[in-house]
């Protein structure tokens, strides 16, 4: 898989393969992530203990982490968006972490997936802003007090910056996951290629191997960080939608 005819093939890990009726390997890992999240949150909370055990503690910590984030960023009005942000955060986090399991598929490394998630966020914040502020929402694109003469410049810029949220949100996660997994694959391939030379090659293989060990740790950080960034940006956008600046 990694070494085919002694060339570096870092991209085949992103290949979609159908399992059944358009249900791909990517979707399989989404399903695994969903089941794992549900198991953690439902089964982990089953004891309902006053003093939580490890699994219940983990479920509660995740709950409180996202709850604190929503509370802090969106404020009191953000309470009803908490389940959505929580689902989003856990889904992205588990997608990223599942990708760290060898031979698994990282569904967050697909721009189609991250873009869809970002689009869901975008539609949600636009709908919320329209529902709360009605037509006043469009005032968002032209700040009060700005000279009317500048409107032809300001309005397009504001609209583009608003629309670019979808792109920046989706591309950030996609690019981070792809870059990390390509690097892991490339250095892992180096290890195999150098190792297969024997002698000096085996000694030479130690360097990319060491680098890969460090990269794995780094990728776990990225997995968590990108899920956090995705969720917190969603919260900030929700804050904008609820308060219009």
């Amino acid at each position, binding site marked *: 898989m990694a070494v085919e005819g002694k060339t570096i093939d870092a991209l085949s890990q992103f290949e979609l393969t159908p399992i059944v009726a358009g249900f791909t390997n990517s979707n399989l890992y989404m399903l695994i992530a969903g089941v794992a999240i549900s198991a953690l949150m439902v089964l982990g*909370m089953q004891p309902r203990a006053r003093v939580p055990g490890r699994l219940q503690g983990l479920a509660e910590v995740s709950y409180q982490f996202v709850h604190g984030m929503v509370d802090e960023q969106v404020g009191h009005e953000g309470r009803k968006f908490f389940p959505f942000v929580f689902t989003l955060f856990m889904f992205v986090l588990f997608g990223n972490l599942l990708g760290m399991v060898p031979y698994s598929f990282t569904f967050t490394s697909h721009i*189609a997936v991250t873009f869809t998630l970002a689009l869901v966020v975008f539609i949600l914040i636009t709908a919320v802003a329209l529902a709360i502020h009605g037509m006043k929402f469009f005032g968002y694109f032209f700040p009060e007090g700005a000279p009317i003469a500048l409107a032809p410049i300001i309005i397009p810029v504001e609209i583009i910056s608003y629309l670019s949220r979808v792109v920046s949100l989706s591309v950030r996660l996609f690019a981070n996951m792809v870059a990390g997994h390509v690097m892991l694959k490339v250095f892992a391939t180096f290890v195999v290629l150098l190792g297969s030379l024997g002698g000096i090659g085996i000694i030479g293989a130690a360097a990319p191997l060491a680098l890969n060990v460090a990269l794995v740790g780094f990728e776990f950080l990225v997995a968590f960080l990108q899920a956090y960034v995705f969720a917190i940006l969603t919260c900030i956008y929700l804050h904008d939608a609820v308060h219009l600046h």
Partner: protein
Amino acid sequence: MPQLDFANPLVLTQVLWLLVIFGALYVLLSKVALPPIARVLADREAAITADLETARALKADADAAIAAQEKAGQKARAEAQAALRAAVDAAKAEAVKAEADLGSRLAADLAAAEARITAAKDQALGAVRTIAAEAAAEATAKLTGLMPDAGAVVAAVDAALAAGQRR
């Protein structure tokens, strides 16, 4: 890059399945998983608050009990000290009385003894006078052959004794 191969129909079906799975997960979490967690956390907070409240009340009780205890202790100490002082005073008064009694008894004894001594002295002195008078009468009889007048001898002896006493 397979991700950008949008001609691949699997990219589209992947997104459709993503929406199904993500939507199902959202419904499951928001309806089934998250409400009990909120309840457990709220229950815990309420329980902790109630426990703290109870602890605070108990502490107040304990403080009151300690204060009462201290007050009772102080009262008891004061009472004990008063009783002690009274006992000491009574004992002192008794001692003073006993001392005074002893003093008066001793004084009486002393006075009686002195009276006895004086009587004995007077008696002894009386005897000396008689002896001296007899001795003087005999000495005078031997020297002069005449029996002196008893009254004159006694007067002479008295005068001599008085002179001796004066010296």
